């Protein structure tokens, strides 16, 4: 297996909110009262049932409670474990799933302030994504503006399945704010569960919910490209988190094929989608939906026609691989170097600003 060299940058790991009590200090009086009085439950998404196999790798799972809540374990298992120099925290508390936009805004602020105080202040290798309430793009933009001065926040976090396809103009204030501050948009697996998790209705099994994320990422990329997000925001980068990546080339072939036939409908798309993807889209390496043989992985890598699109991630504490087998066989040492360090540094300009 290709080694992860010391100094890698882990672009997707998941410190978890242990419980709502831990967040209470970060709400204002009104929301603290509301949460206590109303007995608001934990906002744990059904995307990651707490005891499901992939929610926590067996050796990263505590005897009781949630994985990813303990800073010392995260240091030992994720940071020291892979000798990473920097790691980007994507908190998956179910803020985006709330139906009340005011409440979502309050929770987003609380989660971000909790992240800064409980993780970033305590561990200098950690960076984080800004959690926003996509329920209200104006609130979301305000939250980005509020935190953008703190350079340890390096990205804006959204979920791949929201109320509408993410390219829709409704979301553009978010992209405008992100571009203004040099923040990529990180789009993570997960859903606000406004719609069935497959385009043909609700599946029966959690395993299907996990697998269907890849289809959601595909239609989301279609939306971002066809709506003209990258024409309107030429500096914007989008990072697909926990998305899988093997599907990307064939999806671009498909979108490119129809772009050739139907581009009159979307005249602002003036390049083949694969060209847009090479410039604007990045994908994290775990989970890896790759073929079983190293030789086939090597061929698949060639289909990307670029060595700049993939970013290292452990997806800690989710279970995507065992031991230190974080990169699939078939990736060359040169490509591994790009994936682990060069590409993350090129994608997140703020990483360079905060390390000497």
């Amino acid at each position, binding site marked *: 297996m290709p080694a992860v060299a010391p100094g890698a940058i882990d672009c997707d790991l998941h410190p978890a909110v242990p419980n709502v009590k831990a967040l209470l200090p970060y709400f204002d009086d009104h929301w603290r009262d509301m949460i206590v009085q109303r007995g608001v439950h934990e906002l744990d998404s059904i995307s990651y049932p707490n005891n499901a196999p*992939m929610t926590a790798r067996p050796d990263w799972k505590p005897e009781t409670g949630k994985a990813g809540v303990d800073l010392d374990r995260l240091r030992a298992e994720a940071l020291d474990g892979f000798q990473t120099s920097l790691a980007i925290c994507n908190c998956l508390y179910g803020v985006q799933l709330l139906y009340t936009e005011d409440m979502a805004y309050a929770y987003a602020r609380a989660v971000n302030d909790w992240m800064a105080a409980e993780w970033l202040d305590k561990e200098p290798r950690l960076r984080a994504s800004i959690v926003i309430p996509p329920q209200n793009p104006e609130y979301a933009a305000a939250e980005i503006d509020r935190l953008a001065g703190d350079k340890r926040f390096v990205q804006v976090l959204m979920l791949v*399945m*929201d*109320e*509408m*396809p*993410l*390219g829709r103009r409704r979301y553009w204030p978010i992209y405008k704010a992100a571009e203004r501050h040099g923040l990529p948009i990180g789009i993570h697996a997960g859903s606000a569960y406004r719609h*069935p998790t*497959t*385009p*043909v*209705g*609700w*599946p*029966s*099994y*959690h*395993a*299907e919910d*996990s*697998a*269907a994320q*890849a*289809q*959601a990422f*595909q*239609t*989301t990329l*279609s*939306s971002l490209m*066809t709506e003209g997000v990258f024409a309107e925001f030429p500096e914007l980068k989008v990072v697909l988190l926990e998305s*899988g990546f*093997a*599907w990307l*080339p*064939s*999806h671009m*072939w*498909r*979108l*490119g*094929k*129809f*772009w*050739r*036939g*139907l581009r*009159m*409908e*979307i005249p602002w798309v003036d390049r083949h989608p*694969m060209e847009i993807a090479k410039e604007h889209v990045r994908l994290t390496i775990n*989970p*890896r*939906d790759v*073929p079983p043989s190293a030789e*086939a992985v090597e061929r*698949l890598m060639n*289909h990307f026609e670029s060595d700049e699109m993939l970013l290292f991630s452990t997806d800690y504490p989710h*279970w995507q691989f065992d031991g230190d087998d974080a990169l699939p066989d078939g990736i060359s040492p040169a490509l591994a170097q790009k994936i682990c360090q060069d590409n993350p540094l090129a994608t997140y300009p703020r990483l360079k600003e905060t390390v000497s």
Partner: protein
Amino acid sequence: MNVKTETRTPTSADPSVKLAIADCDIHPSPKSVEKEIYPYLEERWRKHNDIYGLILRQPYQSGPAYPKGQPDAARRDAYVPGGGRPGSDVKYMGTHHLDEHNVQLGVLNPLRSGQGLQNVDFAAAYCRAVNDWQISHWTSQDARLKGSVCLPYEDAALSVEEIERRAGDPNFVQAFMLIRTSEPMGQRRYWPIYDALAAANMPLAVHAFGFGGTPSTSSGWPSYYIEDMVAHAQSAQSMVMSLVMEGVFERAPGLKVVVVEAGFAWLPPLAWRLDRIWEKNRAELPHVKRPPSEYIRDHIWLTTQPFEEPDRRSHLKDTMEWIGWDKLLFATDYPHWDFDDPARLPLPKVDKATRENFFLGNALDLYGLR
């Protein structure tokens, strides 16, 4: 594509020098519903259609939710000389398409067939009429053409009746559904259909489009026709996933499924992804006894139009090898705008036998017509 094409050279118009092919996706239309379909509909449903029309889970009485790129999504040269919608005249289709491309086997997939109608009784009556019409107006008129049994699939019992009515009828080579069902196709409400098809040894074609009513992406409705067209590939992935993960192929090991007009290059990454997730969730899926990729390899075929077009043909060759050359069926989608011309297909270089099977043999094997 709607562009003016060059005039054919005399040799290319001579069928005797061309490879004989199977076209696994041809769309016939009636010239007139009243004249061609009504004779096979009971009086009650003729009146129903006169009053209410074909009400689907989509916004408009007629026409698609997303306006097409051109009228009827048709090739401009496919309009029948002297009048008639593209694909509405067996004789013109015979010369314009079957003779021209030396089509030895043409599989008919009727689209406005009653499938997905809100009223399932009407759907069943209309599908049955369209199936009768395929015999009277098409398969009995040109021996190269074979029909598909349109199923009113949202009602399994009515679908089973139609399968049993047509089982063993040489006019038909397969049954026919649309991908966008109202629930994922692996759900138990559809299982009697698969049992009946396996018993009848009839493959099931599942074509792009459909009227299930749920948004065509899991993030809601997209804005553009191009998104709707590309999204058939994602719907197809969800459909294949559902069939595998719900255990349909364990229950009906004889079932063969053909994915039609939804792309094919997405299949290997889907299979790899499902295998990894299956490994870690075996406890949730005791009914899925083998790795998902094995069910896919054994049970899924795909038609190739609209053909995948990466910049490098070697990348496409990788993909076609990963799928298996024996699982790919050539199709043109005649008379639609995104027609694939067999003489101009950017097919990777392969040996003669593989090429001939791709264009013809695989279909003859699947449909038992060798």
